[in-house]
């Protein structure tokens, strides 16, 4: 009588390019998920040896400690400019600017718009968690109306400080970009879509097509003062109506 033995096959493990170290992100923070997706894409495209990651000031300034590729720190808001400088010297490299909402839409708005407008052949990964995480939860350009933060303690008041900025739609007014998509890492389905978007954004660069912009709605449980699962639900219930998910451009 044949003996039924069960063979095990690893079907979900650590991406080779993701360092086997604990990360400093808060429990339930979306950065950890996005780093993993980025690492998976780098592995699958086989571009670890040509990738250069630009990490500006923000919770993810230490991203190069977790993703084993050449890394360059950038001043707050300046990642697209640093990435431009790198890409112009190494056109064959895969240059990624991994930025938060304060970095990309507040202090670095000009760099964001002009790198996109020049069609720099880089890939911008924009983690939108509607708050400044690193500095303890201040209002960001993507903070929602009425959302309470350390610097909008009574809730963001549009009459005083305006409305959340929609980066994808902003970038969509520019002719040069080839790929613009917004996704979310608040659910398994959303994470898988996010991975596809990151993959496309990197492949566009490998194939020298042009500038790719991926906005990722992400949880900040600590900054929002929510349990991680509550934060994930909040992304779907409150953020996506303001920041509609989907592809805006794919040339």
């Amino acid at each position, binding site marked *: 009588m044949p*003996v039924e033995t069960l063979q095990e096959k690893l079907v979900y493990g650590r991406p080779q390019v993701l360092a086997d170290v604990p990360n400093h992100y808060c429990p339930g923070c979306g950065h950890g998920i996005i780093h993993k997706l980025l690492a998976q894409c780098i592995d699958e495209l086989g571009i670890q040896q040509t990738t250069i990651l630009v990490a500006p000031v923000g919770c993810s300034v230490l991203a190069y400690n977790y993703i084993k590729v050449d890394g360059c720190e950038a001043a707050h808001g300046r990642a697209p400019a640093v990435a431009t400088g790198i890409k112009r010297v190494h056109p064959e490299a895969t240059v990624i600017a991994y930025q938060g909402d304060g970095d990309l839409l507040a202090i670095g708005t000009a760099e964001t718009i002009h790198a996109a407008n020049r069609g720099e052949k880089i890939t911008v990964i924009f983690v939108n968690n509607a708050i400044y995480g690193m500095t303890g939860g201040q209002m960001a350009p993507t903070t929602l109306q009425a959302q309470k933060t350390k610097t909008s303690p009574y809730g963001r008041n549009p009459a005083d400080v305006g409305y959340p900025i929609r980066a994808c739609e902003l970038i969509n007014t520019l002719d040069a970009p080839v790929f613009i998509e917004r996704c979310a890492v608040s659910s398994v389905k959303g994470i898988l879509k996010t991975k596809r978007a990151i993959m496309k954004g990197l492949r566009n660069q490998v194939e020298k097509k042009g500038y790719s912009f991926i906005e990722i709605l992400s949880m900040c*449980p600590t900054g929002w003062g929510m349990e991680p699962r509550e934060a994930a639900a909040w992304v779907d219930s409150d953020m996506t109506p303001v920041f509609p998910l989907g592809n805006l451009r794919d040339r």
Partner: protein
Amino acid sequence: MSRGRPELDRERCKGCTLCVSACPEKILVMSRDQFNRQGVPFAVCFDESRCTACMSCAIICPDMAIRIFRLTAAASEPNVAASDG
């Protein structure tokens, strides 16, 4: 129905509980009165036999604390000497 085994690294787990709600089979739960070195309860699978290797828990885990193995039945030749049958 495919079968799997989740391998949860209790020290890497930060107790965020995202995997618990992501698991369609609802076989993950946070440890009770047990804490990892960071002092947080960690995710555990209380019935691996119901794991379908769908990988949902591993996908949503922000800390690479979960690995998934798929179990496949592989009929092995009867081995007279080794068999304990």
